[in-house]
């Protein structure tokens, strides 16, 4: 473990940085605390607020404006090109495919995550030991997208199929159907001839994109479940009991009472997952690198900016992401404010 000894001091560097940081803040507190009168309030304001404001300007406001600016310039940012970069985004066939893929993510991931999450929330509300399934389904939320990609890469792993040696199918997406077919074949006396494809390369019906979406659905369903479960529990028991006395059961109780009662939360969960789907980057980058027809906007933006150094086109893609995200977030905020006002 010689490396451990050589790398460990890096943690002391971090520790030192934290200590220096606290020392600076306490020093600022002490010095500013010496002031008296009206000036002390001004000084307090500066000490408390200025660090955040400076960091926000340097880290977000100025860069965002700069990105908009760069999106009207050429690859090396020296030549003004007008809206050429935007024409490139919408005029290029590859890019149109990328946008279509992103829109597909934007619809499919929220629909399935919210749908399964809602079903789970309703079922769990009526279960006695709900915390174990809840923890296990929520767990993927704590795993990084990179980790999740390795987990699912194992599921989709491709080996040349051979029914004489099904055990060689490392990926369970091929192994399980082959094993089942083999068992059926043994009973009825035939050799199956269905060959599982190399899943991640299949572009028919966007199958490979859908398989990548499964990863994000796997992660986001837990989020939807936890939030919706809390909402379902907050539906007053009297309302449910009254509806049951009136004869509402099962589906009618669900569609006429529960869903309308949690509508606001449902929409917030949906749009929240939409935002995550719009910005999906890690999954695509690690699984396919955007190849085989799986490219999405966020990954294309990264490739243009930091791999091919087309700063203008990369910036235009970032601006488009921003424009797409803004109405979703604005909607969420309005929805939440309305909901709080009515409570």
């Amino acid at each position, binding site marked *: 473990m010689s490396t451990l000894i050589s790398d460990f001091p890096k943690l002391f560097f971090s520790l030192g940085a934290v200590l220096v940081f606290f020392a600076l803040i306490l020093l600022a507190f002490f010095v500013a605390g010496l002031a008296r009168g009206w000036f002390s309030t001004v000084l307090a*304001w500066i000490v408390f607020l200025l660090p955040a404001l400076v960091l926000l300007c340097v880290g977000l406001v100025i860069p965002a404006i700069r990105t908009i600016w760069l999106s009207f310039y050429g690859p090396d940012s020296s030549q003004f090109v007008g809206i050429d970069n935007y024409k490139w985004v919408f005029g290029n066939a590859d890019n149109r495919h990328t946008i279509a893929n992103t829109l597909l993510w934007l619809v499919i991931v929220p629909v399935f995550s919210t749908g399964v999450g809602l079903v789970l929330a309703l079922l769990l509300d009526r279960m006695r030991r709900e915390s174990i*399934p809840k923890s296990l389904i929520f767990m993927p939320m704590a795993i990084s*997208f990179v980790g999740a990609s390795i987990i699912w890469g194992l599921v989709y792993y491709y080996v040349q199929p051979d029914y004489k040696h099904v055990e060689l199918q490392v990926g369970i997406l091929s192994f399980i159907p082959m094993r089942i077919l083999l068992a059926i074949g043994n009973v009825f006396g035939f050799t199956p001839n269905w060959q599982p494809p190399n899943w991640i390369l299949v572009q028919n019906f966007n199958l490979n994109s859908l398989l990548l979406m499964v990863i994000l659905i796997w992660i986001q369903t837990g989020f939807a479940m936890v939030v919706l479960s809390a909402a379902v529990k907050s539906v007053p028991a009297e309302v449910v009991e009254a509806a049951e006395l009136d004869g509402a059961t099962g589906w009618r109780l669900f569609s006429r009472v529960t869903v309308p009662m949690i509508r606001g939360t449902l929409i917030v969960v949906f749009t929240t997952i939409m935002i995550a789907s719009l910005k999906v980057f890690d999954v695509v980058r690690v699984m396919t690198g955007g190849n085989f027809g799986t490219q999405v906007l966020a990954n294309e933006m990264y490739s243009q900016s930091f791999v091919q150094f087309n700063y203008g086109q990369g910036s235009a893609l970032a601006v488009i992401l921003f424009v797409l995200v803004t109405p979703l977030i604005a909607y969420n905020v309005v929805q939440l404010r309305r909901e709080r006002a009515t409570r």
Partner: protein
Amino acid sequence: MTTVEIPTETAVKEPLPAAVKRKLSSPWATALVIFITVIWTIPTFGLFVTSLRSSAYADNTNWIWALFHWNHFGFTLHNYSEIITGGNIIPQGMEPYLINSFAIAIPAAIFPLVIASMAAYALAWIPFRGATFLFFTIFALQVVPLQMALLPLLRLTVTLKDAIANIPGFENFSLTTTYIPLWSAHTMFALPLAIFLLHNFIAQLPREVMEAARVDGASHFLIFRKIVLPLAVPAIASFAIFQFLWVWNDYLVALTFAGGTPDVAPVTVYLANIQGTYGSQLHLSTAGAFVAIIVPLIVFFSLQRFFVRGLVSGSVKG
């Protein structure tokens, strides 16, 4: 941004009596929940099982099959030591990256937390013209996606690096091989959400307490340290956990600001590289992934309550 209020279960509704619950729960519902839970858990379980099998077995035979054919399981713990320290197949181990992840994530959780709680206090309790406007401006900044800021910020970093290298005495100091750009980027990107969440909490502290302290002549600095920080611990804890995990799991910021070298890059970058270059060495990539996810999982299972609250409120960050 969004915040969804997570009501604590007891506060919202009396829990259903056990008898009622039993009546309502059908065996089909339970079966369906168990079915979904199993589906959701199998991929991670498969990763774990594969990481415990030696190369000849793990890379060539299915792990479910191996569970039923114990003599082909090939149990070993060697994959873990090999991926951590490096070995014949992958010379570069993940150990320096693992250290980097801690070295990045701990300060990158503390810095924004302190700066944001200070700002939140000022916005809530130091009256000045335009405080509300400023708060809403910061709040609105949450719509700016990371992608909008990455490129200009990276250029700024490179400019600063060159500027520092021109200062006499700092010729050998390379800003980009320190954690400073990563800490700064994570701190900046975290601030809008952190200020918003902490403001919600700090603004609701009892007005009488604050005013009494002011009347007694306590300065804002004293009030902040002795009253606000201790009372805001629950909000601070849930944000700290959320931010730590966000930084730990981050790939985009790390890839942009750290490159791939063992100097500063975190485990996510290492794992993505392993997956790209040694994707068929399943026994190693699975062990590496498991080491990388065990840290957030420990945090998750030990601090679930805080974690859920923080994660739910911050799940749209970035």
